[in-house]
């Protein structure tokens, strides 16, 4: 299969390229990156997606397909390093097939699935199952994240060495923090042998108590139990000290508070090996979204205050925050349609992340387009040691083609995900995926 992608604005943060270029893809790899491959400029004035019959010069290359990317952006395939695919165990919420299709639709060519499945991904057999399913049914590349502790119980280390051998790219007890500092220290030391990043869901469970939303003005008004910012920041502070102690690589999931950003910024300046991510919903929304007891705005960490949101934007701007990741957390309609206290935490994000990023971060000038793309491609690849996230001759042809100017309205009914729990329903967003190529094959196309 040979594909020629013509006339797009190729943005590759890894190499710093941002230019109008043609890409020639053959046998799953990018083989040529040049101006005007085939010798002729595209003559059509039309912009947007679409194939057309190969012209003589193109047929000389034996091209199977020409994709016209005029007016579109072509970038390395987006990588979401934090999703919940729910399989095995909760296939009513999502499966590897549906979750990866949602990813492809959102422009992602790779996802990292968290281990809080049923059973937990704390053994090679579960990792094998996930990778096998992904190979057979997955629309995009799946990189499993293994558990830090057996059963996510926070008591004994999982067989991290074997998880690494089986293909896990990081370890995490996501959804639960490793509360025992001694155990976290040992996990970090142990994971460092394999150069695996340890991803922490940072939360002091004692401080969170039975809280369901951010502890702030809105929790006080609505009478909902609050989770203080210090619950996250206290755990971030502890883990930064442990990363310093062990020299291991720490990645902090879904940072949500100003205090966490400040602590991570200071730690990076000291040379601590720490990275972190933020979700699109935490940069787009605040605690005000829960008014009316909106369970689609219930997630953990909770939506914080406007001051926190501003601190997240600053953290993205100055590079403290490395990655944008969705924490895609599918839940069924009936689970979310109930009393606020009883609804599960989490929202889906794969099919809105790119557009929310473009609309809420790039359009207002918080990040340039290449900076935003870096946080969705080369940065997660770097943290996870993946040979992905770049456009280079010889690299895997994992590519995302999107229209940065197309407006659309979020309609959950059209999602490829099995679930509908988005806080962005009805939002008008700018920027839409046109095509997603995984290993040189079109995984999704508008």
């Amino acid at each position, binding site marked *: 299969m040979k594909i020629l992608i013509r006339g797009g604005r190729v943005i590759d943060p890894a190499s710093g390229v941002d230019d109008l270029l043609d890409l020639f893809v053959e046998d799953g790899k990018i083989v040529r990156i040049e101006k005007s491959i085939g010798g002729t400029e595209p003559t059509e004035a039309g912009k947007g997606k679409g194939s057309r019959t190969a012209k003589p010069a193109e047929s000389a290359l034996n091209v199977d397909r020409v994709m016209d990317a005029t007016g579109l952006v072509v970038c390395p395939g987006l990588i979401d390093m934090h999703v919940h695919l729910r399989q095995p165990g909760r296939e009513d919420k999502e499966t590897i097939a549906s979750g990866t299709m949602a990813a492809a639709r959102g422009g992602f060519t790779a996802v990292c699935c968290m281990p809080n499945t049923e059973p937990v991904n704390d053994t090679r057999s579960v990792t094998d199952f996930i990778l096998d399913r992904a190979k057979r049914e997955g629309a995009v590349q799946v990189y499993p994240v293994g558990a830090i502790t057996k059963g996510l119980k926070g008591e004994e280390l999982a067989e991290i060495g074997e998880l690494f051998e089986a293909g896990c790219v990081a370890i995490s007890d996501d959804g639960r923090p490793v509360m025992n500092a001694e155990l976290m220290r040992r996990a970090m030391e142990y994971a460092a042998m394999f150069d695996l990043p340890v991803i922490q869901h940072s939360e002091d469970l004692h401080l969170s*108590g039975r809280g369901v939303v951010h*502890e*702030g*003005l809105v*929790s*006080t*008004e*609505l*009478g*909902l*139990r*609050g989770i203080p910012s210090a619950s996250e920041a206290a755990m971030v502070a502890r883990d930064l000290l442990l990363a310093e102690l062990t020299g291991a690589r720490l990645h902090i999931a879904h940072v949500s508070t100003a205090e966490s950003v400040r602590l991570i910024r200071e730690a990076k300046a000291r040379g601590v090996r720490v990275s972190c991510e933020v979700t699109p919903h935490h940069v787009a929304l605040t605690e005000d979204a829960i008014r*009316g*007891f909106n369970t689609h705005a219930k997630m953990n960490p909770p939506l914080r205050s406007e001051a926190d949101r501003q601190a997240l934007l600053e953290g993205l701007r100055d590079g403290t925050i490395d990655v944008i990741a969705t924490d895609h957390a599918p839940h069924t309609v*009936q689970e979310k*349609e*109930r*009393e*606020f*206290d*009883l609804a599960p935490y989490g929202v889906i994000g794969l099919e809105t992340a790119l557009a929310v990023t473009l609309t809420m971060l790039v359009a207002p000038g918080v990040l340039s387009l290449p900076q935003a793309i870096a946080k969705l491609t080369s940065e997660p690849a770097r943290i996870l040691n993946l040979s992905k996230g770049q456009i280079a001759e010889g690299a895997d042809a994992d590519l995302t083609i999107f229209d940065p100017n197309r407006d659309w309205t979020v309609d959950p009914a059209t999602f490829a995900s099995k679930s509908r729990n988005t806080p962005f329903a009805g939002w008008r967003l700018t920027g839409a995926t046109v095509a997603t190529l995984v290993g040189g094959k079109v995984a999704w196309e508008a």
Partner: protein
Amino acid sequence: MSLGHKDLLGMQELTSDEIRLVLDTAESMKEVARRDIKKVPALRGKTIINLFYEPSTRTRTSFEIAGKWLSADVINVSTSASSVTKGESLKDTGLTLQAMHPNIVVIRHPAAGAAAFLAGRLAASVINAGDGAHEHPSQALLDLFTIREKMGRLEGLKVAIVGDITHSRVARSNIHGMQKMGMEVRVAGPRTMLPCFIERLGVEVFTNLDRAIAEVDVIMMLRLQIERQQAGLFPSLREYSRLFGLTAERMKAAKPDVLIMHPGPINRGVEIAPDVADGPYSLILNQVENGLAVRMALLYLLAGGGQAG
């Protein structure tokens, strides 16, 4: 005149005119309640369901009697006897009740927002009889009624609400209601039981009882939930009582004719000393009596009263 809402979910969404309408209507209802024969036909043929997910004696009984005096058919559904224990969702319980065409559903539920959840799914009027720590509007209305009855006005009066403000729906509803009626509200309690940013609701915050009750016209004591001790919010009943219990001795810091209120049930000797609870300035039993009149008014106004007669 009628309320401009299908439901009564909280004091936060009522205007001062609407509050005044309820209080004025309650005055005529109180006259009915004091008759020898209390039954009036105002809500004949109307059905009221009391849906209680939390144990309650006074609120449930009060709504039940209020409905019966207005000749409505009142049905009580409580958690232990219902399908709730079989795991039916609030949505399905609501839809099931809706199919029985009630006019009003009175709900008490431990989760904040439960009344609003139900209201969005029912054609019937929903009255929030307490949703978690969120709101308990009929309590605030009966408190306002009781104060107005005693003082002849609400505007310009000062009140101190004392106790566990964080977990109190009574405090939240009263803060909204009292401020709308032009009252000045203070809250007082241990720092561990004062929610963050409470001052942004326009109240003055105290952690010293003597200072909180100085110069106020009304002291409203809240019930202390004993379980809060295990949660680490206060060290012992003894110390709580010493710092925040209202005793005759403490009352010397207050105006001599200060009114004492408590939504009940009281913990005698904990947040309120027996001689204060039973003393001449205590309105605790007036609150209970006025609760009937206020709830009659609410049922009457929400069930389309005025047409029936």
